[in-house]
Protein backbone atom coordinates (compact mmCIF):
# COMPACT_ATOMS: atom_id res chain seq x y z
CA UNK A 1 0.00 0.00 0.00
CA UNK A 2 2.82 2.40 0.96
CA UNK A 3 4.63 1.70 -2.34
CA UNK A 4 1.53 2.42 -4.35
CA UNK A 5 0.83 5.65 -2.45
CA UNK A 6 4.42 6.86 -2.99
CA UNK A 7 4.13 6.22 -6.72
CA UNK A 8 0.82 8.12 -6.89
CA UNK A 9 2.34 11.11 -5.04
CA UNK A 10 5.35 11.11 -7.36
CA UNK A 11 3.07 10.99 -10.36
CA UNK A 12 1.05 13.91 -8.97
CA UNK A 13 4.17 16.01 -8.38
CA UNK A 14 5.41 15.36 -11.91
CA UNK A 15 2.00 16.37 -13.31
CA UNK A 16 2.09 19.77 -11.55
CA UNK A 17 5.38 20.63 -13.22
CA UNK A 18 4.03 19.58 -16.63
CA UNK A 19 0.84 21.67 -16.90
CA UNK A 20 1.56 24.65 -19.21
CA UNK A 21 -0.40 27.88 -19.56
CA UNK A 22 -0.45 28.29 -23.32
CA UNK A 23 -2.20 26.75 -26.23
CA UNK A 24 -4.88 24.15 -25.91
CA UNK A 25 -2.93 21.41 -27.69
CA UNK A 26 -0.22 21.47 -25.06
CA UNK A 27 -2.88 21.19 -22.37
CA UNK A 28 -4.37 18.09 -23.92
CA UNK A 29 -0.82 16.75 -24.34
CA UNK A 30 -0.16 17.34 -20.66
CA UNK A 31 -3.31 15.52 -19.76
CA UNK A 32 -2.25 12.65 -21.99
CA UNK A 33 1.07 12.56 -20.15
CA UNK A 34 -0.78 12.58 -16.82
CA UNK A 35 -2.73 9.55 -17.96
CA UNK A 36 0.49 7.82 -19.00
CA UNK A 37 2.03 8.46 -15.60
CA UNK A 38 -1.05 7.05 -13.90
CA UNK A 39 -0.51 3.68 -15.55
CA UNK A 40 2.58 3.10 -13.40
CA UNK A 41 0.70 2.00 -10.27
CA UNK A 42 -2.91 0.92 -10.27
CA UNK A 43 -4.80 0.66 -6.97
CA UNK A 44 -7.14 -1.73 -8.77
CA UNK A 45 -4.62 -4.48 -8.03
CA UNK A 46 -5.82 -4.43 -4.44
CA UNK A 47 -9.44 -4.60 -5.54
CA UNK A 48 -8.66 -7.60 -7.77
CA UNK A 49 -7.19 -9.37 -4.73
CA UNK A 50 -10.31 -8.69 -2.69
CA UNK A 51 -12.47 -9.89 -5.57
CA UNK A 52 -10.53 -13.12 -5.78
CA UNK A 53 -11.00 -13.70 -2.05
CA UNK A 54 -14.74 -13.08 -2.44
CA UNK A 55 -14.89 -15.51 -5.34
CA UNK A 56 -13.37 -18.26 -3.21
CA UNK A 57 -15.16 -17.52 0.06
CA UNK A 58 -18.00 -19.77 1.23
CA UNK A 59 -20.91 -17.36 1.66
CA UNK A 60 -24.68 -17.12 1.82
CA UNK A 61 -27.34 -19.44 3.14
CA UNK A 62 -25.80 -22.34 1.21
CA UNK A 63 -22.27 -21.62 2.49
CA UNK A 64 -20.77 -22.16 -0.95
CA UNK A 65 -18.10 -20.28 -2.92
CA UNK A 66 -18.54 -18.91 -6.45
CA UNK A 67 -16.01 -21.40 -7.79
CA UNK A 68 -18.65 -23.40 -9.69
CA UNK A 69 -20.20 -20.32 -11.30
CA UNK A 70 -20.69 -20.75 -15.04
CA UNK A 71 -19.71 -17.52 -16.81
CA UNK A 72 -20.26 -19.03 -20.25
CA UNK A 73 -17.14 -21.20 -20.59
CA UNK A 74 -18.32 -23.89 -18.17
CA UNK A 75 -18.64 -24.08 -14.38
CA UNK A 76 -15.67 -22.54 -12.60
CA UNK A 77 -13.90 -21.26 -15.73
CA UNK A 78 -13.05 -17.61 -15.06
CA UNK A 79 -10.04 -17.26 -17.34
CA UNK A 80 -11.21 -15.58 -20.55
CA UNK A 81 -14.85 -15.47 -19.47
CA UNK A 82 -15.23 -11.68 -19.22
CA UNK A 83 -14.07 -11.26 -22.84
CA UNK A 84 -17.01 -13.28 -24.18
CA UNK A 85 -19.75 -11.56 -22.20
CA UNK A 86 -22.59 -10.61 -22.64
CA UNK A 87 -23.92 -13.90 -24.00
CA UNK A 88 -27.04 -16.04 -23.97
CA UNK A 89 -27.46 -18.45 -21.07
CA UNK A 90 -29.87 -21.36 -21.54
CA UNK A 91 -30.39 -21.86 -17.80
CA UNK A 92 -32.09 -18.47 -17.55
CA UNK A 93 -33.11 -18.19 -21.22
CA UNK A 94 -31.71 -14.70 -21.58
CA UNK A 95 -28.60 -12.68 -22.34
CA UNK A 96 -26.53 -11.69 -19.32
CA UNK A 97 -23.47 -9.49 -18.94
CA UNK A 98 -20.62 -10.30 -16.53
CA UNK A 99 -22.06 -8.38 -13.58
CA UNK A 100 -25.62 -9.72 -13.86
CA UNK A 101 -24.25 -13.25 -14.33
CA UNK A 102 -22.09 -13.04 -11.20
CA UNK A 103 -25.08 -11.78 -9.21
CA UNK A 104 -27.09 -14.70 -10.63
CA UNK A 105 -24.45 -17.07 -9.25
CA UNK A 106 -24.43 -15.29 -5.90
CA UNK A 107 -28.18 -15.87 -5.66
CA UNK A 108 -28.48 -19.40 -7.07
CA UNK A 109 -25.23 -20.96 -5.87
CA UNK A 110 -24.71 -19.13 -2.61
CA UNK A 111 -28.30 -18.38 -1.60
CA UNK A 112 -27.65 -14.65 -1.17
CA UNK A 113 -30.64 -12.35 -1.48
CA UNK A 114 -30.95 -10.56 -4.85
CA UNK A 115 -32.43 -7.37 -3.42
CA UNK A 116 -29.72 -7.14 -0.76
CA UNK A 117 -26.87 -7.82 -3.19
CA UNK A 118 -28.09 -5.26 -5.74
CA UNK A 119 -29.44 -2.60 -3.37
CA UNK A 120 -26.24 -0.53 -3.53
CA UNK A 121 -24.18 -1.92 -6.37
CA UNK A 122 -21.75 1.03 -6.43
CA UNK A 123 -19.67 2.41 -3.58
CA UNK A 124 -19.98 6.01 -2.49
CA UNK A 125 -17.18 8.57 -2.12
CA UNK A 126 -14.55 7.40 0.34
CA UNK A 127 -16.24 4.03 0.82
CA UNK A 128 -14.69 0.62 0.22
CA UNK A 129 -15.59 -1.03 -3.08
CA UNK A 130 -18.78 -3.04 -3.10
CA UNK A 131 -18.67 -6.81 -3.59
CA UNK A 132 -19.91 -6.33 -7.15
CA UNK A 133 -17.09 -3.90 -7.93
CA UNK A 134 -14.47 -6.21 -6.40
CA UNK A 135 -15.81 -9.22 -8.31
CA UNK A 136 -15.85 -7.15 -11.52
CA UNK A 137 -12.19 -6.27 -11.02
CA UNK A 138 -11.27 -9.90 -10.38
CA UNK A 139 -13.24 -11.23 -13.34
CA UNK A 140 -11.87 -8.77 -15.88
CA UNK A 141 -8.30 -9.30 -14.69
CA UNK A 142 -8.70 -12.97 -15.66
CA UNK A 143 -9.36 -11.82 -19.23
CA UNK A 144 -6.37 -9.52 -19.52
CA UNK A 145 -4.83 -9.95 -22.96
CA UNK A 146 -7.75 -12.06 -24.21
CA UNK A 147 -9.41 -10.88 -27.44
CA UNK A 148 -12.98 -9.68 -27.05
CA UNK A 149 -15.25 -12.28 -28.65
CA UNK A 150 -18.85 -11.53 -27.80
CA UNK A 151 -21.14 -13.99 -29.56
CA UNK A 152 -23.94 -13.06 -31.96
CA UNK A 153 -24.99 -16.59 -32.87
CA UNK A 154 -28.11 -16.96 -30.76
CA UNK A 155 -31.22 -14.99 -31.85
CA UNK A 156 -31.46 -13.41 -28.38
CA UNK A 157 -27.86 -12.21 -28.68
CA UNK A 158 -28.66 -10.56 -32.02
CA UNK A 159 -31.85 -9.05 -30.57
CA UNK A 160 -29.92 -7.65 -27.61
CA UNK A 161 -27.47 -5.97 -30.01
CA UNK A 162 -30.31 -4.46 -32.06
CA UNK A 163 -32.14 -3.18 -29.00
CA UNK A 164 -28.87 -1.81 -27.63
CA UNK A 165 -28.24 0.04 -30.87
CA UNK A 166 -31.77 1.51 -30.85
CA UNK A 167 -31.37 2.64 -27.25
CA UNK A 168 -28.00 4.16 -28.12
CA UNK A 169 -29.73 6.56 -30.52
CA UNK A 170 -32.75 7.30 -28.33
CA UNK A 171 -33.00 11.01 -27.50
CA UNK A 172 -34.99 11.73 -24.36
CA UNK A 173 -35.24 13.80 -21.22
CA UNK A 174 -35.12 17.57 -20.73
CA UNK A 175 -31.72 17.83 -22.44
CA UNK A 176 -32.72 15.63 -25.44
CA UNK A 177 -29.53 13.60 -25.01
CA UNK A 178 -28.95 10.14 -26.39
CA UNK A 179 -25.72 8.14 -26.04
CA UNK A 180 -25.11 9.14 -29.67
CA UNK A 181 -25.22 12.84 -28.76
CA UNK A 182 -21.73 12.40 -27.33
CA UNK A 183 -20.58 9.03 -28.62
CA UNK A 184 -21.95 8.87 -32.14
CA UNK A 185 -19.71 11.42 -33.88
CA UNK A 186 -15.98 11.22 -34.52
CA UNK A 187 -13.57 13.71 -32.99
CA UNK A 188 -15.90 15.15 -30.36
CA UNK A 189 -14.67 16.40 -27.03
CA UNK A 190 -16.52 17.60 -23.91
CA UNK A 191 -14.30 20.20 -22.25
CA UNK A 192 -10.98 18.40 -22.68
CA UNK A 193 -12.34 14.84 -22.48
CA UNK A 194 -12.12 13.11 -25.84
CA UNK A 195 -15.26 11.15 -26.63
CA UNK A 196 -14.90 7.79 -28.37
CA UNK A 197 -17.28 7.24 -31.29
CA UNK A 198 -18.36 3.83 -30.05
CA UNK A 199 -21.06 3.40 -32.67
CA UNK A 200 -19.04 3.96 -35.82
CA UNK A 201 -15.30 3.83 -35.17
CA UNK A 202 -14.07 0.35 -34.32
CA UNK A 203 -10.85 1.52 -32.66
CA UNK A 204 -12.83 3.88 -30.42
CA UNK A 205 -15.27 1.15 -29.37
CA UNK A 206 -12.37 -1.21 -28.72
CA UNK A 207 -10.46 1.27 -26.60
CA UNK A 208 -13.59 2.04 -24.58
CA UNK A 209 -14.72 -1.56 -24.01
CA UNK A 210 -11.32 -3.06 -23.23
CA UNK A 211 -10.47 -0.53 -20.52
CA UNK A 212 -13.53 -0.92 -18.29
CA UNK A 213 -13.72 -1.81 -15.38
CA UNK A 214 -11.21 0.81 -14.30
CA UNK A 215 -9.81 2.47 -11.23
CA UNK A 216 -11.29 5.93 -11.63
CA UNK A 217 -8.92 8.37 -9.90
CA UNK A 218 -11.54 11.13 -9.77
CA UNK A 219 -13.91 8.68 -8.06
CA UNK A 220 -11.24 7.25 -5.78
CA UNK A 221 -12.48 3.73 -6.46
CA UNK A 222 -12.92 0.96 -9.00
CA UNK A 223 -15.84 1.43 -11.40
CA UNK A 224 -17.50 -1.20 -13.55
CA UNK A 225 -19.29 -1.07 -16.92
CA UNK A 226 -22.71 -1.11 -15.26
CA UNK A 227 -21.62 1.94 -13.24
CA UNK A 228 -20.29 3.66 -16.35
CA UNK A 229 -23.66 3.36 -18.11
CA UNK A 230 -25.60 4.43 -15.02
CA UNK A 231 -23.44 7.53 -14.65
CA UNK A 232 -23.80 8.42 -18.32
CA UNK A 233 -27.57 8.36 -17.97
CA UNK A 234 -27.38 10.52 -14.85
CA UNK A 235 -25.51 13.16 -16.81
CA UNK A 236 -27.89 12.75 -19.74
CA UNK A 237 -30.64 13.83 -17.29
CA UNK A 238 -32.34 10.45 -17.65
CA UNK A 239 -33.71 8.53 -14.65
CA UNK A 240 -31.72 5.81 -12.83
CA UNK A 241 -30.59 2.84 -14.96
CA UNK A 242 -31.40 -0.27 -12.93
CA UNK A 243 -28.38 -2.50 -12.20
CA UNK A 244 -28.30 -5.56 -14.47
CA UNK A 245 -31.46 -4.47 -16.27
CA UNK A 246 -32.26 -5.69 -19.81
CA UNK A 247 -31.48 -2.22 -21.23
CA UNK A 248 -28.06 -2.24 -19.54
CA UNK A 249 -27.26 -5.69 -20.94
CA UNK A 250 -28.48 -4.65 -24.40
CA UNK A 251 -26.21 -1.59 -24.40
CA UNK A 252 -23.19 -3.54 -23.18
CA UNK A 253 -23.85 -6.07 -25.94
CA UNK A 254 -23.93 -3.26 -28.55
CA UNK A 255 -20.70 -1.72 -27.28
CA UNK A 256 -18.95 -5.05 -26.75
CA UNK A 257 -19.75 -6.52 -30.15
CA UNK A 258 -18.50 -3.29 -31.74
CA UNK A 259 -15.25 -3.91 -29.86
CA UNK A 260 -14.76 -7.53 -30.92
CA UNK A 261 -11.19 -8.45 -31.77
CA UNK A 262 -9.30 -6.14 -29.43
CA UNK A 263 -7.53 -7.51 -26.35
CA UNK A 264 -8.95 -6.79 -22.90
CA UNK A 265 -6.65 -4.46 -20.96
CA UNK A 266 -8.42 -4.13 -17.65
CA UNK A 267 -8.69 -3.14 -14.85
CA UNK A 268 -7.10 -0.01 -16.25
CA UNK A 269 -6.67 3.31 -14.49
CA UNK A 270 -8.53 6.39 -15.65
CA UNK A 271 -8.69 10.03 -14.62
Amino acid sequence: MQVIKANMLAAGALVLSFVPVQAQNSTTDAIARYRELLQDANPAELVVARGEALWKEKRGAKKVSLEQCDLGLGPGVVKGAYAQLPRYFADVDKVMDYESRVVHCMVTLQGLDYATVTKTPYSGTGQRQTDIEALAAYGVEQSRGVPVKIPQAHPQEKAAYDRGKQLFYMRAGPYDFSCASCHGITGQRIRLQDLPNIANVKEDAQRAFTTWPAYRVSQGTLRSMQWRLNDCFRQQRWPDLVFGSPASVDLITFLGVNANGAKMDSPSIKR
Partner: protein
Amino acid sequence: MQVVKSSFRERGIAKLDRLDQSEIQTACSEASLTGKDLPKDVRARLEKAALATIKLPADGVYLGDFKQGERIAQTGVGLQWSDTEKTVAGGNCYACHQIGPQEIAFGNIGPSLRNYGKQRGNSKEVMTYTWGKLWNSHAYNACSQMPRYGDANILTTAQLKDLMALLLDPNSPVNK
Protein backbone atom coordinates in the same frame (compact mmCIF):
# COMPACT_ATOMS: atom_id res chain seq x y z
CA MET B 1 -40.07 1.84 -25.63
CA GLN B 2 -41.81 0.04 -22.77
CA VAL B 3 -38.83 -2.35 -22.52
CA VAL B 4 -36.65 0.66 -21.95
CA LYS B 5 -38.88 2.22 -19.30
CA SER B 6 -38.90 -0.97 -17.24
CA SER B 7 -35.10 -0.87 -17.07
CA PHE B 8 -35.10 2.52 -15.39
CA ARG B 9 -36.50 3.82 -12.13
CA GLU B 10 -37.19 7.28 -10.93
CA ARG B 11 -34.63 8.82 -8.64
CA GLY B 12 -34.81 12.22 -7.00
CA ILE B 13 -36.06 14.79 -9.49
CA ALA B 14 -35.54 12.46 -12.47
CA LYS B 15 -38.95 10.89 -13.03
CA LEU B 16 -39.81 8.17 -15.52
CA ASP B 17 -41.83 10.56 -17.69
CA ARG B 18 -38.48 11.86 -18.91
CA LEU B 19 -38.45 8.75 -21.11
CA ASP B 20 -41.66 9.77 -22.88
CA GLN B 21 -40.28 11.06 -26.13
CA SER B 22 -41.61 14.15 -27.84
CA GLU B 23 -42.31 14.06 -31.58
CA ILE B 24 -39.07 15.87 -32.32
CA GLN B 25 -37.06 13.53 -30.08
CA THR B 26 -38.56 10.50 -31.84
CA ALA B 27 -37.96 11.95 -35.30
CA CYS B 28 -34.36 12.92 -34.54
CA SER B 29 -33.60 9.59 -32.86
CA GLU B 30 -34.78 7.81 -36.00
CA ALA B 31 -32.73 10.13 -38.22
CA SER B 32 -29.50 9.45 -36.34
CA LEU B 33 -30.18 5.69 -36.08
CA THR B 34 -30.77 5.34 -39.83
CA GLY B 35 -28.36 8.05 -40.94
CA LYS B 36 -31.17 9.47 -43.10
CA ASP B 37 -31.94 13.16 -42.71
CA LEU B 38 -35.49 14.25 -41.87
CA PRO B 39 -37.79 14.74 -44.88
CA LYS B 40 -37.80 18.44 -45.84
CA ASP B 41 -41.43 18.97 -44.93
CA VAL B 42 -41.05 17.28 -41.52
CA ARG B 43 -37.96 19.35 -40.80
CA ALA B 44 -39.76 22.57 -41.74
CA ARG B 45 -42.77 21.73 -39.60
CA LEU B 46 -40.71 20.79 -36.54
CA GLU B 47 -38.54 23.91 -36.81
CA LYS B 48 -41.64 26.09 -37.17
CA ALA B 49 -43.17 24.52 -34.08
CA ALA B 50 -39.95 25.04 -32.13
CA LEU B 51 -39.81 28.68 -33.25
CA ALA B 52 -43.30 29.19 -31.84
CA THR B 53 -42.14 28.14 -28.35
CA ILE B 54 -39.67 31.00 -28.03
CA LYS B 55 -40.63 33.55 -25.38
CA LEU B 56 -38.77 36.83 -25.89
CA PRO B 57 -38.09 38.89 -22.72
CA ALA B 58 -41.25 40.74 -21.74
CA ASP B 59 -39.39 43.95 -20.84
CA GLY B 60 -37.52 44.01 -24.15
CA VAL B 61 -34.17 43.93 -22.31
CA TYR B 62 -31.86 41.26 -23.71
CA LEU B 63 -28.55 41.84 -21.97
CA GLY B 64 -27.80 41.10 -18.31
CA ASP B 65 -24.46 40.75 -16.53
CA PHE B 66 -21.64 39.10 -18.50
CA LYS B 67 -19.66 38.24 -15.34
CA GLN B 68 -22.64 36.21 -14.13
CA GLY B 69 -22.92 34.84 -17.64
CA GLU B 70 -19.39 33.46 -17.44
CA ARG B 71 -20.27 31.68 -14.18
CA ILE B 72 -23.39 30.20 -15.75
CA ALA B 73 -21.36 29.03 -18.75
CA GLN B 74 -18.82 27.35 -16.45
CA THR B 75 -21.39 25.50 -14.31
CA GLY B 76 -22.53 22.05 -15.35
CA VAL B 77 -25.03 20.99 -12.68
CA GLY B 78 -28.79 20.91 -12.80
CA LEU B 79 -31.67 18.47 -13.47
CA GLN B 80 -29.62 15.32 -12.75
CA TRP B 81 -30.92 12.83 -10.20
CA SER B 82 -27.92 13.86 -8.12
CA ASP B 83 -29.25 17.45 -8.10
CA THR B 84 -32.36 18.73 -6.32
CA GLU B 85 -35.15 21.19 -7.16
CA LYS B 86 -33.06 23.79 -5.31
CA THR B 87 -29.97 23.26 -7.46
CA VAL B 88 -29.31 26.32 -9.59
CA ALA B 89 -28.65 24.90 -13.04
CA GLY B 90 -25.81 26.12 -15.20
CA GLY B 91 -25.62 26.13 -18.96
CA ASN B 92 -22.50 23.98 -19.10
CA CYS B 93 -21.68 25.94 -22.23
CA TYR B 94 -17.93 25.25 -22.05
CA ALA B 95 -18.68 21.53 -22.36
CA CYS B 96 -19.26 22.18 -26.08
CA HIS B 97 -18.09 25.69 -26.96
CA GLN B 98 -15.04 27.87 -26.91
CA ILE B 99 -16.27 31.15 -25.41
CA GLY B 100 -14.05 33.50 -23.40
CA PRO B 101 -10.31 34.04 -24.01
CA GLN B 102 -9.16 32.82 -20.59
CA GLU B 103 -10.78 29.40 -20.59
CA ILE B 104 -8.75 26.78 -22.45
CA ALA B 105 -10.73 23.79 -21.22
CA PHE B 106 -13.52 23.93 -23.77
CA GLY B 107 -15.21 21.32 -25.91
CA ASN B 108 -15.67 21.16 -29.64
CA ILE B 109 -19.19 19.78 -30.06
CA GLY B 110 -20.53 23.23 -30.90
CA PRO B 111 -18.91 26.05 -32.90
CA SER B 112 -16.55 28.55 -31.30
CA LEU B 113 -18.34 31.57 -29.79
CA ARG B 114 -15.16 33.60 -29.51
CA ASN B 115 -15.85 37.19 -30.62
CA TYR B 116 -19.51 36.31 -31.06
CA GLY B 117 -20.82 39.86 -30.63
CA LYS B 118 -17.83 41.49 -32.28
CA GLN B 119 -18.49 39.51 -35.45
CA ARG B 120 -22.25 39.99 -35.57
CA GLY B 121 -23.05 43.34 -33.98
CA ASN B 122 -26.03 44.18 -31.81
CA SER B 123 -28.89 44.46 -34.28
CA LYS B 124 -32.41 43.40 -33.29
CA GLU B 125 -32.09 40.41 -35.63
CA VAL B 126 -28.91 39.22 -33.91
CA MET B 127 -30.51 39.71 -30.49
CA THR B 128 -33.65 37.76 -31.27
CA TYR B 129 -31.77 35.02 -33.16
CA THR B 130 -29.29 34.51 -30.30
CA TRP B 131 -32.09 34.52 -27.73
CA GLY B 132 -34.01 32.05 -29.84
CA LYS B 133 -31.02 29.74 -30.13
CA LEU B 134 -30.63 29.70 -26.35
CA TRP B 135 -34.36 29.27 -25.76
CA ASN B 136 -34.92 26.51 -28.28
CA SER B 137 -32.09 25.70 -30.70
CA HIS B 138 -34.39 23.35 -32.65
CA ALA B 139 -36.08 26.39 -34.15
CA TYR B 140 -33.03 26.79 -36.42
CA ASN B 141 -31.93 23.15 -36.66
CA ALA B 142 -34.56 20.53 -35.96
CA CYS B 143 -32.09 17.96 -34.58
CA SER B 144 -29.69 20.34 -32.85
CA GLN B 145 -27.64 18.77 -30.05
CA MET B 146 -27.91 21.92 -27.94
CA PRO B 147 -30.26 21.70 -24.95
CA ARG B 148 -33.45 23.81 -24.95
CA TYR B 149 -32.41 26.14 -22.16
CA GLY B 150 -35.62 28.18 -22.12
CA ASP B 151 -38.17 25.74 -23.49
CA ALA B 152 -37.14 22.94 -21.11
CA ASN B 153 -36.92 25.32 -18.13
CA ILE B 154 -33.25 24.62 -17.59
CA LEU B 155 -32.25 28.27 -17.13
CA THR B 156 -34.26 31.27 -15.95
CA THR B 157 -34.89 34.35 -18.08
CA ALA B 158 -32.41 36.26 -15.89
CA GLN B 159 -29.75 33.60 -16.49
CA LEU B 160 -30.39 33.69 -20.23
CA LYS B 161 -29.94 37.48 -20.21
CA ASP B 162 -26.58 37.00 -18.46
CA LEU B 163 -25.51 34.53 -21.17
CA MET B 164 -26.68 36.99 -23.83
CA ALA B 165 -24.46 39.63 -22.22
CA LEU B 166 -21.51 37.22 -22.20
CA LEU B 167 -21.92 36.82 -25.94
CA LEU B 168 -23.12 40.24 -27.06
CA ASP B 169 -22.03 42.91 -24.58
CA PRO B 170 -19.16 44.82 -26.26
CA ASN B 171 -17.44 44.92 -22.85
CA SER B 172 -17.61 41.14 -22.41
CA PRO B 173 -14.19 39.40 -22.56
CA VAL B 174 -15.66 37.27 -25.33
CA ASN B 175 -15.61 40.31 -27.61
CA LYS B 176 -12.22 41.71 -26.62
